[in-house]
Structure formats: C-alpha cells, structure tokens
C-alpha cells in the first residue's frame, strides 16, 4: 500500500494474491485428501471460515479509511477472503476464476487511483478530492467500471460472474449456511465502501488545494484496456459457457443457455443483484453528491462514533500484533542479550574470579606458610649461626677461658666417673 502505485497494482492484483490463493489451489489435492465424495475436509472447512471472516472483516475496515489506496488495499484483503472461501467450498475453478477477474479490475482500480493521485498532485486523502468526474472524465469512467466490477454489478461486469460462482458454492455448502450469509453481507459492504470512495473522489465539488487535471494518455490508455477486460472477462466463466472452469478441470466446454434458467441459480443472482444495488443506494444515500468539508466528521461517524473509531483504527489488528508478536520479539531479544551478558557472561566472569581468588590464596599460602616456614627455618639457622659465631670471636683470651673451663669440667667429670 505504501509502495509506488504501479507496484501496489502489481502486488495486489497479481503477485501476492496469486501466490497465496494459487498455492492453495495448487495443493488442493492435499487439502482434499481423505474426503468422501461430495464431502469436505477439516482443512477446507478451516479455509472456508477464515476466508468468509476475512471477507467481512476487511470490508468493514475499508469503510472507514480515507486514503484512496488504503481502501483498495483492504478491499483486496476482503476479496482474498472470497477467493479462499470459494476454493474451500466450490473447488479450484471457482476460487481461481475470481482471482483472475479480480486481478484485472483491482489493477484497474489501483492504476486509476494512481491516475487520481497524480492528477491531484500527490494527494491521497479522499476528503481532499471531489468533483473529479468533470476534471478527469476518462479516469472516472474507467474507475467506475472497475468499481462496479468489484461490487459485482449484474451481468455486464466480470466480478458479478466470479463472485456469483462463489456465492452459489456457498449456498450449496453441506456444512453450514453461515458463510453464505457472511459473504452476502460482504457484498453489501463492498458496494457501500466503493460508493463512498467514488462519491468522495468523483462527485461533489473540488476540495483540494491545487486544481486537478486529467492524466496523460500513457496513464489513461492502460486504464481503458483494463476496463475492457474488467467487463468482458466475465464472459469466459458464465454458467452458460463456463470455459474457464472447463479449462482448469480439463473437460470439454458446452454452450448451454438452459444452465442460466436453473431456478436456484436465478434466485441467487437476483438476490446478489438486489444486495449490490441496495449497497450502492445506501452508499449514495450517505455520501451522495454532497462534498463535506475535509475536516468534517464522516456521515457514518455522526451516527455511530464508537464503531467508526474502531473501524478507522483498523479494528486494532496492528495494535494487537504490536502488543503480542512485536512485543514478544523485542522482549525476547532483550532476554537473549541479558542471558548473554549476565548468565553466560556472568558464568565466565565467575570462573575468572574464582581463578583469581585461587591465585591469591595460592600466593598467600606460599608467602605465609611455605615461604614463611622456610624463612623461619632460615632465620633460626642464622640466629643459631650468629650465636655460634660469637664463640669464634678470634680473641685468644676467650679461647683460653673456654679451654680452662673445659679442662676444669673434664677433670670434674673424670673425678666423678672414677669415684669408687
């Protein structure tokens, strides 16, 4: 969404959508493994519920966005939900057909949004646009075609046929009827938010700063081509001539107008057409031709401010991720760092300190005990030596004295020993 508009068109229309939905379609045999004929599997059931919930959830958020590309981005998420639900309930061809039609009308819408943004001199806020149907007629016409295709406006637009395939499959789903009603509600929401966007951008009067201008042919020509496809592409997947489904399922295609006359099918098409038209009218009723001031609260905001705030803040999904995944990531990174510095590093420091302590003790032991004992011995030896050295003074008188004392002692001992 924040990317350059052609990149958004590519991502939303082809790359990302194609990757996720295509991969589910590609591994469909795995998803189906173990199913009874005509039955379904847990994997497919999960896909259906997630898809249906996504379709409604994202469409709700799209209602309250003011960035022209952000609305389309949430619309893409919603349509992805349709594709997934279609894969889960109707099989590969149903989901893939919506993928293909959506690729064309959604890239048309993104390119159209790019043309609008360019024409409004890099303005993306729909509240600061308005009345562009006069200034940018070609962009308006093609955008309207894309919008009607996205809403699934009856008969002429490809989105009608691909979405009807999904609705029909949902109606016939064996497990529950709820996804069908969810998806039908999504159709209403889609028509509503697209009408809101188109009213803000193309109807009313100009509320931007500088005057808008039509984009050059290099930008409008692709819009025209895409618009043709957004209408005509439905022809390859109508119930009367389901060429696309036949192609994917590798069977011969039969042209059979009677298939359209099936009462259940007719009823469903009528119902979805009524829902679409009701959504368009509801949108017109709220936003119509009236051009509120950019600062003024939205028409829905006046009725339900709390609900509006929740939708505008995207139902707090980003905040939820911020508070869980991102917070966990950052917290865990700090834990890893702390473990490193304090626990592992601390263990190393402790071992080093222990070694230091041991070294000190060893030094002390050496000094005080080993060296001390040795020194003590040496000291005593040297004191003894000093005492002895006094004896050997070199003075003749001392020697004679000791000699005399010795002789006296010897005589005394001899006398003592020879005593009878």
């Amino acid at each position, binding site marked *: 969404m924040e990317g350059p508009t052609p990149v958004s068109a590519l991502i939303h229309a082809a790359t990302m959508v194609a990757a996720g939905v295509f991969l589910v379609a590609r591994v469909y045999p795995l998803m189906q493994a173990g199913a009874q004929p005509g039955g379904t599997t847990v994997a497919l059931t999960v896909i259906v519920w997630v898809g249906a919930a996504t379709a409604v959830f994202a469409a709700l958020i799209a209602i309250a966005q003011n960035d022209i590309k952000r609305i389309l981005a949430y619309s893409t998420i919603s349509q992805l939900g349709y594709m997934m639900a279609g894969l889960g309930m109707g099989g590969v061809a149903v989901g893939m057909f919506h993928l293909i039609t959506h690729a064309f009308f959604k890239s048309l819408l993104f390119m159209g949004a790019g043309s609008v943004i360019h024409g409004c001199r890099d303005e993306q806020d729909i509240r600061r646009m308005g009345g562009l149907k006069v200034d940018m007629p070609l962009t308006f016409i093609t955008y309207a075609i894309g919008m009607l295709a996205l809403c699934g406006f009856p008969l002429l637009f490809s989105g009608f046929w691909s979405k009807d395939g999904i609705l029909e499959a949902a109606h016939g789903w064996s497990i529950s009827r709820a996804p069908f009603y969810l998806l039908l509600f999504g159709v209403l929401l889609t028509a509503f938010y697209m009408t809101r966007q188109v009213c803000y951008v193309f109807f009313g009067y100009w509320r931007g700063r500088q005057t808008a201008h039509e984009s050059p042919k290099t930008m409008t020509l692709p819009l025209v081509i895409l618009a043709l496809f957004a209408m005509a592409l439905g022809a390859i997947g109508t119930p009367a001539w389901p060429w696309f489904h036949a192609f994917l399922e590798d069977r011969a295609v039969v042209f059979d107008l009677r298939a359209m006359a099936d009462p259940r099918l007719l009823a469903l098409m009528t119902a979805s057409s009524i829902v679409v038209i009701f959504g368009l009218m509801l949108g017109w009723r709220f936003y119509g031709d009236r051009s509120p001031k950019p600062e003024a609260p939205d028409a829905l905001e006046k009725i339900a401010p709390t609900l509006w705030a929740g939708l505008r803040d995207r139902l707090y999904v980003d905040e939820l991720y911020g508070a869980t995944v991102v917070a966990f*990531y*950052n917290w*865990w*990174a*700090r*834990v*890893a*760092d702390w*473990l*490193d510095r304090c*626990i*592992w*590093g601390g*263990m*190393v420091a402790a071992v080093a300190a222990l070694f230091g302590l041991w070294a000190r003790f060893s030094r002390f032991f050496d000094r005080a005990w080993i060296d001390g004992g040795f020194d003590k011995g040496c000291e005593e030896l040297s004191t003894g030596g000093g005492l002895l050295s006094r004896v050997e003074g070199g003075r003749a008188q001392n020697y004679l004295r000791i000699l005399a004392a010795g002789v006296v002692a010897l005589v005394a001992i001899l006398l003592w020993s020879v005593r009878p």
Partner: protein
Amino acid sequence: MNGIPILTLLTVLPLAGAAVALFSGKQARGVALLSGLASLAVALFVWTQLPADGSIGLVERAAWVPSLGIEYHVGVDGLGALMLVLSAIVTLMAVDAAHRVHHMPGFFYGLILMLQSGLFGAFTALNFFHWFLFWELSLIPAFFLIKLWGGPRRGPAATQFFVYTMAGSAALLVSFLAIFFSTGSMDFGYLATLAQTGALTPMVESHLGSAMPWLAAGVLAGFAVKVPLMPFHTWLPEAYAEAPSPVTMLLTGAMSKMGLYGLLRIALPIFGVQIAAMRTPLLVLATITVVMGAWAAAAQTDLKRVFAYSSVNHLGYCMLAIFALAVPAAGAAQRASQAAALNGAILQIFNHGITAAALFWFVAMIQFRTNGLRGINDFGGLRKPAPIFAGLMGIALFSSLGLPGLNGFVGEFLIFRGVFPLAWVAASVSILGLLVTAVVLLTVIQKVFAGPTPERWAKFPDLHPSERMALTPVIVLMFLLGLAPQLIVDTINPTVMNLLAHWRF
C-alpha cells in the same frame, strides 16, 4: 601428484610469505597479496586433484617421533580441500580489506599469513599431535592481531578469546592423551577404524574404566568453544567486535570453521557412539544457539556485534545438522536425510565463510568512511549517496538471510531437508532462527540504507573502482553458488557418502 608434496608446500607457502612480509615494511601488503593469491591457486589445484571416491588423497606420511606415535601425516578429502579453498579465499579477502593498517604493517601481514599457515596445517593434518600443533599455532597470531591492532577494549577481548580457546584445547588434549594411553596411536584414520569396528571403547575401558563419554565430552568442549556452541560463545562477540575487521573476517570466515571441521574429522569418526548417546542435549544446545543467537543479534546496536551473533546463529545450523545426523541410520530414507544434512552443513560452512567475511568487509568500508562509526543507528538513507555500496552490501545481507538464488539459501535448505526427518522438533524450533535472522538483517538494511539521508552523510562516498573490483569476485561467487551449488556438491558428495559409510553411531 607423485613426488610433489603439495600439501606441505601449501602449508609452508604462507609461512615463507610471512617471513618475507615481516621484513618488507610498507611492501608487506603486496607480499601478502601475492602469497595469498599463490595459496589460493595451490588450494584450487588441490581441489581438482581429489580422489573420485571421496576418500583421503594427496597423502604424505613420514615418521616424526615414532616412540610417541607421532607422525607427519597429511592428506585431504573433499571436506579438507573445501576448507583449504575457503581459508585461501577468506585470507585473500582479509588482506585486501586491511589496506588501512599503517601500524607495523610488516608484522600485521606476517601474522595474518602465519594464521593462514595454521589453518592450512590444521585442515590437512591426520595425526593428532600434528593437528594440535597447527590448531594452537593459529591461535597465537590471532591473539596478537586482536591485542595489537584491535579496538578500545582489545586487551580483555584478546585475553578472553585466548584463555577460553585454550581451556577448550586443554580438554581436547587431555582426551587425546587418554586415547593415546589406551591405544598407543594418535592417527585419526587408525582411531576411526578402531571406533568403526567397535574396538576402541573396550580398549579405553580396559585402561581407564568407563571414561569414554568423558573423553568425548572433552573433545566436544574443545570444538564447542571454537565454533561456538552456546553457552560457550561469550568470547565471540567481544573478540569479533574488538578485532580489526580483517581479523574478524578470518576469525569468522575460517577459524570458526576449524571447530566444525574438527567435529567432522575427529569427533564424529572417533566418538560417534558417545555423541549419539548425548544427541538430545547436544541438539538442545544447537537449537538454543540457532534461536538465541538470532535473537541476541536483534538486541545489538553495533553492526559488528549484530553480524557476530548472526554468525553464531548461522554456525548453529551446521551443528544442528551434525548432531541431528548422529543416529544409527535405519533404512535408505534416513541415510538420504543424513547425507542431505551433512552436505548442507558443509555447504553452509563454506557459504557462511564467504558471506560473513564479506559482511565484516563492508563494515570495515563503512568505518573507513565515517571515522570508525558502526552503530546501527548512526546511519540512514545511505542508499542515496552510495547506491552501489548499498546494492552490493544488500546482496551480501540477502545472501546471509538465505534468499533463494544466493549461496546462503542452499546450505540452509539442505540442512533443514536433512534435519527435519531426523529431529523434527529441533528443526521446527530452529526455523524461528531463520525468521528472526531475516528480521535482523532487514532491519540493518532499513536502518542503514533506507529512510531519509541525514545531512552529514549526504556526501558518503560510494565504492571506488578498486573496491568494486575487489568485491566483484565475492559477489559473483554468491550468485554462482546460489544458482549452481553442484560446483561444490559434486565434489563433496562422494566425501559425504564416504564419511557416512565409515561413521558408527
């Protein structure tokens, strides 16, 4: 190759280069480049001369100290030869990245070449004594390189690095003394044969009782420090951050690989049974290394520390593969998984060596332009003034996070392909590491290259032609190995099959 002792020549060549560089002052860089190129040429030649069956070739053998079982015994198989080529490439990159060393250049380049010789010696030795000599020899130049040319906290970093590795080496040495005491041999091949036939454990038991698991643990400790395996890694961020960038390139690109090589050449062949018995705790540690390494990288603000922890994470995958495959294979499917894991681990060793060295090289270039700044928050919007810089570093970053089409992807893919069937819990948890690494490296791209350009970096110089020329072969290699990994796999796969056939778990 009758007669020409090519591996001895390869080991002596950088030593001679070092001797010349030491005395050639300002010309030392030229000498080192020449020597590095010559080494690379010889290493590539060795790569082409390997025996086709994956056994060890180019053997040279001579008595050294026969009474102590010490022999001069060298030889390489695909694994060893790949390590030689990697060491030669990384050394050349490091020498090229070092153009800013003005302080005692002769000594600096001399030490780098000495380190290279140590690497070559350790990657070719087949006798414990000889191998240990070079293992330690490579440590000494690394210590001085950090100590003398490092950053502000180089002293403690160098000491911690040295002491930590020495402690691991001591455990390794004791284990091998015990093995020698029990068997009378230090020859890797002979000991591996003993282990394969199951004769080694009774021999050790008759002399030392039930010491065998402890001996295995000692050997593992030596390698766990070197790679590193958490929690034996705390020396690494300090050493990588404080070492001058060329030395960091060598540390991560080549020296950390000595540990992994040791696991494959020494630990698994000789202590396979014991490692298989310790497999679960080892897998837990490897998984922790992968996951916590990535998350610790997320918390760093210094680019060098980011890449240091990211290296811990990347080498964690290798250890995950090596430990996961240490299980008695039951059936062909499991053997295929083991082969995939081992091929992946060896590819990852090579690819990480190239990519991590390139990343630290880019950090060196950033620091060169900004007077030493390398905080992740110091920059922004460098893409505008320096688009080629941003593009090439972006390629290296994407290679590191494992983008398909670049070399980082193939190794990790093979590792997970092999590890999942062998240890699916560890593999599933480790996948988180891939995710977090991607976030971390994309954050680097976003914070350094994207966003608004601050005023002071408006004139950040782009890569000049000589830098581009030096980087081109590395970037080309990233694409080449990403698109055609068989350039390596074709040569190492026979070795992998040969190794697996001889290991007993």
